[in-house]
């Protein structure tokens, strides 16, 4: 696991205590594209946490952004987020 993924994982685990967390570093697929010049990576986050219950998609994404706040300006250029509650995961396997 690379260092940036490890940092993202540590922040999300501390802030949201996820049941399930999968982070994929997709940066290689975007190397050379104009947006990648800042040095930040592209990451896909799949996260299942009880903390999302009763929250809209935008509120869930905000929770993730807040947990990663300082990384959003350095390590992360783009972040794709799939945020589910444990109940939603079991109803959409």
């Amino acid at each position, binding site marked *: 696991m690379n260092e940036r993924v490890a940092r993202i994982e540590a922040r999300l685990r501390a802030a949201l205590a996820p049941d399930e967390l999968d982070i994929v570093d997709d940066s290689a697929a*975007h190397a050379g*594209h*104009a*947006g990648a010049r800042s040095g930040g990576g592209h990451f896909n986050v799949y996260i299942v946490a009880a903390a999302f219950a009763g929250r809209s*998609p*935008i509120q869930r*994404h*905000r929770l993730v*952004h807040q947990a990663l706040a300082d990384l*959003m*300006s350095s390590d992360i250029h*783009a*972040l*794709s*987020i*799939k945020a589910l509650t444990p109940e939603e995961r079991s109803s959409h396997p």
Partner: protein
Amino acid sequence: MDDVLQRIDQQVKNNPVLIYMKGTPQMPQCGFSMRASQALAATGVPFAYVNVLEDMEIFQNLPRYADWPTFPQIYIAGELVGGCDITLELYQSGELQKLVDTATAGQDTAG
């Protein structure tokens, strides 16, 4: 509110469906911007766009307007809906169509 935030606020309020994106719907410069603008286009409702790569002031300040750190950003009826992921989820569930239809409903008769 400083000038640039006021300018953004005017754009958001004056356009019922608006996307801040990298590039244009015809020539997107980022895959996320491309997919989000394609979802908007698929609703068949006219939408406005701002190319943030052509306006550095907006590029640098939009994240603090609605406390959202990334691009693209999609606004419907003056409210931030989200970025690419949420817009695609809403498109797939049919919710995006309802939102844009409602947001533009007054337009035809008012125009």
